[in-house]
Every structure is written in structure tokens, then in C-alpha cells.
């Protein structure tokens, strides 16, 4: 196996110049998975962002070397264990209709390719923008007659990871116009709203300060192309709404609920800021 590790492993000691700073990642590294699958981790910002930034970057770039390396090989990536578990769930019959996901969607590798890249997505029948997690629960409830999974729970994040990994390497490409536009506008409004007693918006940290340290954390652009992510901090997969909740909480604010219409709007908007980056899930973060 050939991995371009040289690049990632250099210059770290040099980076830790000031006292107390942690060794930060090499922001010029490239992400190649299993030695052959090249990821787009930096690319031109989508048109709707062109007045605020030129380039968009994956959160992988801002992680330390050890963390970066974990995502470069599926045998090292702890998130892949959950993908395997979800493969079993994909084939398992559940609910009153005696069906599994596979009953309707056959082979996940074929039927789910490209799906992650375009979610959240307008659902014509429902007349609303839906996240992948909502769609999973819709199938469980209405096609299988099975119980809905908890929005941020382990079964849900694992299934999201299984579906997402089928799009790995494909560019994120969520639609922001047409019927999705008003939801996108709502999400944008939220992104720039300063919440909580600290009066901080997503943009304050992830647009104005990416690349800077905030205490021990190296701020990224807060992209969600890598979601669900395996976090070393809590040793599990985390979906975007769980992460949003943590960030809103950290502004000393009342959070929104995972799965709520508010977070769906925010997810659509944040996803659209990553249009062009590779789907990276399951990614690894600290």
C-alpha cells in the first residue's frame, strides 16, 4: 500500500511556534484513501459564496496528522466498523411489512451511489426539504412498518454512513434553487445569526476565523461533506445535526432540535457551502 504520508508528516514541529499551541495539521496535505481514491479537499468556492471566500476546504485539512492518517485507510478508519454494522441492518427484515431496505433497494452499492451528494433535497410528495436521516425514517415508518430511529442515534448514523460511503469521492451537489430556495434562505439567515450569550454566529467562527486556533481547537470551515464523522472525542459516528447542536450550545444559546425544520434548513445551507468538495463520509475528526 502506498500512501502519500511524507507530505502529511512533515513540518509539524515547525508549526508549533508559540507557547502552548498544539501541533496543527499540514494544511497543504492531500487526502488519498486506500492509496488510490483521491478526494477533492480544496476547490473553488461555489458561486453563491464567491463574495465571501475563494476556496472551500474540507475539515480534514485542519486536523492533526494522527487524525488525518486514520482517514486515509479504511482499515484504520473506526467509522468503517459502523458501515459494516449498517450493512447487516440493510439486509435485516424489520417491521410489520416483513421488509428490509434491500427488499426495495437491492444492492446498496448500486442503488445508493450518488444519493448522499445531493442531500438534503426537495421531496416533491412531502412538499419539503428532507435530510437523508428523514428519508431513512420515512422508509422505515411507511415502507417497512418499523419504528423510527432516533435522529442522532447509533443506528441512524451508521445507516447514514453506509449510504454516504457509496458516494465517497463524488462532489457534493445540493440544489439550492427552485422549491428548495426558501429553505436555503432560511438556513443562510441562521448561519449568520449571532446566538446565545456569547453572540456568535457560525460565520464568526467558520467563515471569519477558519485556520485560527480557538483555545486548543483548530477552526475549520465547518463543512459537512465528511458527515457522518467518527469523532475520537466520543468514539462514535456523529451526524450533522448533532454537531450543529454542540456548536450552538457553545455560544451559550438554546439549541435547536436535531431533525427540526430549523436544522434541516441549516443543513441544506451548510451543505451548499461545500458544493464541489468530495463526499468524504465516514470521516474522522477529533
Amino acid at each position, binding site marked *: 500500500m502506498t500512501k502519500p504520508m511524507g507530505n502529511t508528516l512533515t513540518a509539524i514541529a515547525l508549526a508549533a511556534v508559540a507557547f*502552548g499551541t498544539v501541533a496543527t495539521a499540514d494544511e497543504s496535505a492531500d487526502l488519498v484513501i486506500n492509496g488510490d481514491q483521491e478526494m477533492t479537499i480544496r476547490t473553488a468556492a461555489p458561486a453563491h459564496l464567491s463574495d465571501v471566500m475563494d476556496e472551500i476546504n474540507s475539515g480534514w485539512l485542519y486536523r492533526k496528522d494522527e487524525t488525518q492518517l486514520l482517514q486515509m485507510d479504511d482499515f484504520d478508519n473506526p467509522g468503517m466498523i459502523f458501515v459494516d454494522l449498517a450493512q447487516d441492518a440493510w439486509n435485516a427484515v424489520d417491521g410489520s411489512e416483513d421488509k428490509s431496505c434491500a427488499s426495495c433497494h437491492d444492492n446498496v452499492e448500486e442503488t445508493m451511489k450518488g444519493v448522499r451528494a445531493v442531500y438534503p433535497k426537495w421531496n416533491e410528495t412531502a412538499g419539503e426539504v428532507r435530510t437523508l436521516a428523514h428519508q431513512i425514517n420515512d422508509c422505515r415508518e411507511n415502507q417497512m412498518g418499523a419504528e423510527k430511529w432516533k435522529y442522532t442515534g447509533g443506528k441512524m448514523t451508521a445507516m447514514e454512513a453506509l449510504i454516504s460511503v457509496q458516494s465517497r469521492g463524488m462532489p457534493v451537489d445540493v440544489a439550492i434553487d427552485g422549491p428548495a430556495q426558501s429553505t436555503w434562505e432560511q438556513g443562510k439567515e441562521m448561519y449568520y445569526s449571532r*446566538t446565545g*450569550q456569547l453572540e*456568535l454566529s457560525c460565520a464568526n467562527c467558520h467563515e471569519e476565523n477558519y485556520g485560527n486556533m480557538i483555545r486548543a481547537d483548530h*477552526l475549520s470551515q465547518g463543512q459537512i461533506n465528511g458527515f457522518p464523522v467518527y469523532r475520537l472525542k466520543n468514539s462514535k459516528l456523529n451526524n450533522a445535526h448533532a454537531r450543529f447542536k454542540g456548536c450552538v*450550545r457553545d455560544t451559550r*444559546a*438554546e439549541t435547536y432540535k436535531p431533525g427540526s425544520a430549523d436544522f434541516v434548513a441549516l443543513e441544506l445551507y451548510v451543505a451548499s457551502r461545500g458544493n464541489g468538495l468530495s463526499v468524504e463520509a465516514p470521516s474522522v475528526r477529533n
Partner: protein
Amino acid sequence: MKLTSLTLAASLIGSAALAGEVAPKDVQFDDYGAVEVSLSGASGDAANGALIAGTKSKGNCVACHAITALADVPFHGEVGPTLDGAGARWNAAELRGLLANAKMTFDGTVMPAFYKVDGFTRPGDAYTGKAAEGELMPILTAQEIEDVVAFVATLNEE
């Protein structure tokens, strides 16, 4: 003895001002965002201010600012400028204003207001993610602000 009764009084009356203390809503900023009078009515203790500035649950100034005087505290941020020399750049009134509500000095700054209790969007109950109940407390008390002002005033060297 005196201390105990003061703490007790403070917890009973919530954010209501103690004698000689300026309540968050009554702070007078001048046109440049400076605050002339001591918020607590007393002077500050620089040593305690240093502690507050480096403590995560208190001022956590190092989250955003590098401060050489606090080199023993790990992980200083880069979101704001280094505070080395800030004591030479700003007088006490200006520092007090910056701490109470930096937005009065720097329009739209990301620096949080440490002595402000209203005008927030979706204020939470500290870091629980739940909605705040009842009156909010400022992030730092009047005396804590004075202590940090006294500490930053000692940072005279670039």
C-alpha cells in the same frame, strides 16, 4: 463572615446590584466605548484577574488571545490580537468598556460582552443548550471585570 453574607445576598437577589455596584443595564459607555467608573465600586486584584483570564469557565480570554504572562496556561487562541502590550495601548476605562461590552468599542466584533444580560437571540442556560430561565447573569461579575481590568493593565510589554 462578611464574605459569606455577601455571597448569600448575591445568590438571593440574583443579578440585582450590590451596594456600590453598577448593574449590567446601568453601565455608562462614552462615545468610544470606555467606562469611567469601577463596576464594583472597588479596585481590582490583578492576580485574581490573571486567574480569571486563564480559566475556561470564567473569562477564558486565552481562548482567543495569546498572553505571554499566562504562558503556563496551555493553548492560547488566535481569534483576537495578543494582549501583550494591551495595558500600554488602553487605559483602565477603555479596558473596562472592552470587557463589559467590546461591541461598543469595536462594532460587530466577535469578542463576547462579559457584563451584559439582555438583547440576546436564543439565550441559553449557560452551556447546557437549554433555554435560559429567569434573569441572565453576566458572564463575569462586576468585581471579576475589575480584576481582569487590573490584570490586563499590567500587560505593558509588547
